């Protein structure tokens, strides 16, 4: 007898097509965790997904979740308003670092400060992936990007911005965590954090935020395995993992 050992999450529709993430990109891991958690918590049937602009759009080829795609950076403003209009719907944004931390910094911080009862999934790979590898607010010092060809230097470009730590200065947010998907142990932790963040919204506690430290093998100029080592050995020194707040 055949035994089913894995189940495709309801939010993902492989008959529709495939995703367009580059091989080895951790976006597919974080998106899968989010989709699985929607299923596990019985949320798929009452969820709306607010999608940012950037590589997260590479999921569009294979998802069948009710989706709003809004202007670049504005996910939290759209999602926060939707939640107030339809409080029984589970509302989540999924945004990259250019989207959430550069052009959308104001929307993100003010939504967090209002305590909008939404869940924000933030994928931080320290670079603009979709547009070909430019400087992001989260780019590490010294990192070469197409717009910092000699490396990011603090005098000229400032320092990497830390969204969990910034949001943690505000009173209203109820859940803040930083995770990664480099290995099974971290994936399990990430699954728990996403579940906890979703539960905060279900309990009406307000703004919940999970940052995924992610990779971009294509624009980092690394193989997928090298990029995982780079996260473990370098990126996590700048962006420590952990639960910053769990009210």
């Amino acid at each position, binding site marked *: 007898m055949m035994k089913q050992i894995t189940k495709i999450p*309801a939010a993902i529709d492989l008959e529709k097509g495939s995703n367009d993430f580059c091989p080895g990109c951790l976006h597919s891991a974080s998106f899968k965790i989010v989709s699985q958690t929607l299923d596990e918590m019985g*949320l*798929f*049937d*009452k*969820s*709306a*997904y607010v*999608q940012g602009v950037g590589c997260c759009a590479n999921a*569009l080829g294979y*998802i*069948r*979740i*009710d*989706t*709003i*795609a*809004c*202007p670049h950076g*504005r996910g939290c*403003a*759209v*999602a*926060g*308003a*939707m939640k*107030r*209009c*339809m409080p*029984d*719907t*589970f509302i989540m944004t999924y945004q990259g670092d250019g989207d959430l931390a550069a052009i959308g910094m*104001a*929307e993100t911080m*003010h939504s967090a400060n209002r305590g909008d009862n939404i869940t924000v999934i933030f994928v931080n790979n320290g670079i603009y992936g979709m547009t070909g590898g430019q400087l992001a607010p989260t780019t590490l010092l010294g990192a070469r990007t197409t717009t910092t060809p000699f490396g990011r230097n603090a005098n000229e470009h400032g320092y990497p911005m830390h969204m969990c730590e910034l949001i943690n200065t505000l009173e209203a947010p109820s859940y803040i965590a930083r995770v990664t998907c480099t290995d099974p142990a971290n994936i399990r932790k990430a699954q728990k954090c996403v579940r906890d963040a979703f539960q905060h919204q279900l309990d009406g506690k307000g703004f919940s935020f999970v940052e995924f430290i992610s990779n971009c093998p294509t624009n980092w100029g690394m193989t997928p395995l090298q990029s995982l080592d780079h996260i473990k050995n370098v990126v996590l020194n700048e962006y420590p993992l952990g639960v910053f707040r769990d009210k």
Partner: protein
Amino acid sequence: MEEKKFMKGCEAVAEAAVRAGCRFFAGYPITPQNAVPEYLARRLPQVNGVFMQGESEVASSNMVFGGAAAGKRSLLSSSSCGISLMSETVSWMALCRLPVVVCNFQRGGPGIGSIQPSQQDYNQATRALGNGGYRMIVLAPADIQEAVDMTYEAFDLADKYSEPTMVLLDGFTGSLMEPVTLPPMKSEEEVKAIEASKPWVPTGNKGTFHRVFFHKPAPIQNGEDAEMYEKWKETEVQYETDGLEDAKLVVTSYGVSARIAESAVEVLRAEGYKLGFIRAKRIYPFPEAAFEEINYDQVKGILDVEMSQPAQYAEDVKAAVRKRAPIETCLTSGGVIIDRDDIVAAIRDMYERKVGE
């Protein structure tokens, strides 16, 4: 039930929106329309509506995007430079075919300009807010009563076409107080029925992906939208004409300056001047048909009156008149309310030169 009240323009427009079933508003302070958010902050909670103050026009307009996506009749209101900041969102709402009513209480420009009334956003309103060359039906009220009636109607138009719809006002109409008859309040059942008529609202597992993201593949959607805009030219044109039968000179205008121009026309008619009058009640689609009612064998000239330098409405008038009569302008810079005496003098001058004593 209809109700007569003495009200400030901004508040009357906000109340008309609530009566039309508007249950979501987000805004950011900007003179001269602060009375809209201030009124709705008190009013919307009374009808289980949602009011939000955004951290910018950009954020506020995206909140309205969210409200509209959630199926609520939603209002966006600002003034000129604020509308520019909201333009990106309105362009996206045209992409997603989300219904919204956009009120612009125009002030002087370009840029921050001045806080005084103006009509300098004509091109912006009638061509496209933001990128992509989409169109909106643009209603142009001349007084508070019309502002109320048109705002009420704009919500029906927005839902009918599932498309952003604009009411182009000015700081004068927004700040004035006048007696106004308010339209009937839609019942909770009516509001619920309107919200239920939007099956694409993403409440989960409805496959609304295509409806609320890209409505359709762009080449198909753009072609269909262009056809819709063409049909509007037959079904959605609104204008008013007066005295064209024996007119020797025609005065044309829209919005608040039409109100002042009409009164200048009355002054001179009493003196025996043969004046026709054309007022565009909607400026998109432009009322070309009104200019076909002119007897060009008899009319010696057309005077365009508007509060914009350079003239903008006049360009559409030119295209409609097609050189069949000379067109002159009577303008003030945006930010300066046009004076009836100046319009009287301009009409007198043109009449004497073109028609004779």
